[in-house]
């Protein structure tokens, strides 16, 4: 089928793409070309959400690749403007549903920076611990689905077995497996249960062995190597020009990790290595993420060992809700509780941009306050959104079958792209 044969059958937007790419690549009319347009998604098992790709292919070779997004747009940024500062936290979970704690952390750090609030050490350590567990579980979902896309179905079940344990830990601390909303502006919502530390320790004890198990299933496998090595190359210059962050950036040889280079939330206290690879292909992204999981286990272990005694919320009665006991027995706490719940708390006017290394790359929250109890503007800079722009560079001129491998390797979450 030539793309112009039946124009009324084409989906809106396709004609533009075909004309654009025909001009760019051939300088000719699409009708005279041998290319065809292939619609991939929005319901496609390997697009990890509702991503639609309009691919122009010449035989098996990809000529152009235009992502069409917005299917999950729910207007979270607009909704934030109508909520009190604390009420925004549950919305942030739903942006990137694979790393809820990281979203919570970024937003809370941004608002704490606006207010100038210092949070206690115990909360800092617990936040780092939970953030690293989140990174491991997000990488487990990536590994499972990526391997499944390539055809290695077994790995998925192995990964979800360990992910389940992390989700159970989340449920124990927050009461929720995925949409945790556990972090509060000024600390944490509640003290973790008593068996939390033992469960985390047990998990950290077995995890390195489990990561080796996944590697045994994949790393030496000739099919896996054949599908990953040399596929989807991205040069360091292109990676920087196209805004790629996180593991794909480090797999292209750019040694940049916000946890080490611009520390936030006490990361400067932890010792860890930042895995970098110079290959820039899908294989490099695989090895970088696998090594990152080992490092996350190390950071989580240091955080678990270092948790000091003390409060989990900042001493700021006008911002942090009082404990139940206090609220029931002290008049002043009751008044603070009533005021925070009914009218929120005013945040001094100003603007901040807080960036955090999420499992997918740089997650930044830009929060603007006009001095009232509701944020004037909340903008999320999401890593997947920028990384998706690099998809065409990675796929152009390569085989159609490799598109699936490349999409898996950049580990996008459509929830955070569309917001």
């Amino acid at each position, binding site marked *: 089928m030539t793309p112009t044969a039946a124009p009324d059958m084409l989906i*809106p*937007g396709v004609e*533009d793409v075909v004309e*654009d790419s025909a001009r760019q690549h051939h300088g000719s009319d699409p009708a005279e070309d041998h290319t065809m347009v292939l619609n991939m998604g929005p319901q496609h098992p390997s697009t990890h959400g509702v991503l639609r790709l309009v691919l122009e292919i010449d035989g098996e070779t990809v000529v152009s690749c235009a992502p069409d*997004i*917005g299917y999950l*747009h729910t*207007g979270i*940024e*607009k*909704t934030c*403007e*109508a909520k009190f500062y604390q009420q925004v936290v549950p919305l942030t979970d739903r942006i990137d549903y694979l790393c809820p704690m990281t979203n919570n952390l970024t937003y809370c750090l941004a608002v704490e*920076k*606006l207010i*100038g609030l210092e949070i206690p050490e115990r909360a800092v350590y617990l936040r780092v611990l939970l953030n690293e567990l989140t990174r491991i579980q997000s990488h487990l979902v990536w590994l499972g689905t990526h391997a499944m896309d390539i055809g290695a179905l077994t790995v998925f079940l192995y990964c979800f077995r360990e992910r389940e344990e992390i989700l159970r830990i989340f449920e124990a601390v927050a009461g929720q497996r995925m949409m945790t909303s556990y972090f509060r502006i000024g600390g944490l919502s509640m003290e973790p249960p008593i068996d939390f530390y033992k469960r985390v320790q047990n998990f950290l004890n077995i995890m390195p062995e489990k990561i080796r198990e996944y590697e045994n299933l994949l790393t030496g496998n000739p099919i896996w190597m054949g599908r990953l090595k040399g596929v989807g190359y991205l040069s360091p210059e292109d990676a*920087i*020009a*196209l*805004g790629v962050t996180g593991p794909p950036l480090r797999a292209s040889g*750019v040694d*940049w990790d916000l946890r080490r*280079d*611009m520390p936030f939330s006490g990361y400067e206290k932890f010792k860890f290595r930042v895995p970098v690879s110079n290959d820039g292909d899908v294989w490099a992204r695989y090895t970088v993420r696998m090594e990152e999981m080992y490092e996350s286990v190390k950071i989580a272990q240091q955080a678990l060992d270092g948790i000091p005694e003390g409060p989990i919320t900042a001493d700021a009665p006008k911002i942090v809700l009082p404990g139940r006991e206090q609220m029931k027995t002290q008049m002043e706490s009751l008044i603070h509780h009533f005021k925070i719940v009914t009218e929120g708390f005013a945040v001094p006017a*100003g*603007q*901040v*941009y807080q*960036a955090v290394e999420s499992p997918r790359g*740089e997650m*930044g929250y*830009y929060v*603007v306050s006009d001095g009232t109890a509701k944020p*004037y*503007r909340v*903008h999320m*800079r999401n890593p997947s*959104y*920028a990384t*998706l*722009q690099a998809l065409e560079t990675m796929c152009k001129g390569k085989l159609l079958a490799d598109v699936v491998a490349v999409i898996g390797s950049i580990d996008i979450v459509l929830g955070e792209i*569309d*917001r």
Partner: protein
Amino acid sequence: MAEPLLTLEAVRENMPENAAVVALADLATKAKFDRNELTITVAAENIVPACQAVQSAGYNFFEDVTAVDWLPNEPRFVLAYHIVSHKLKERVRLAVEVSGDDPVVPSITGVWPSANFYEREIFDLFGIRFAGHPRLTRIMMPIDWEGHPLRKDYPVEGYR
């Protein structure tokens, strides 16, 4: 946390060595150092040379651009570009003020191609146009959508 510096003069006096302050010596119209974040305002028509200047000063990685709608103030929109330097480990925010009627800003996709989606998003949700953008179409909303949802005069519940 360092004391805030609220004027261009104060920033120039107290941060004379800062690479972005030096690079934008001619282009800056306002500057602010608040909550350890440096904001430098430039005129809308100068945003491309300003980006090139900070890029050659070592701020190599474009992170984000977004807009804030200050209705009913004029200039109505303020754009905030966040650029980080991998070498200096510093971030700078370039601000651009845009008038409410016929908002147009030069596109910086020539300097950083990664601005492409971000500028499309601002066009879609705020209705600010970017001159010289390779493909300025809606990105979040359906192509036949009316209005720009993140403007302050657009109701949160939408039009019904």
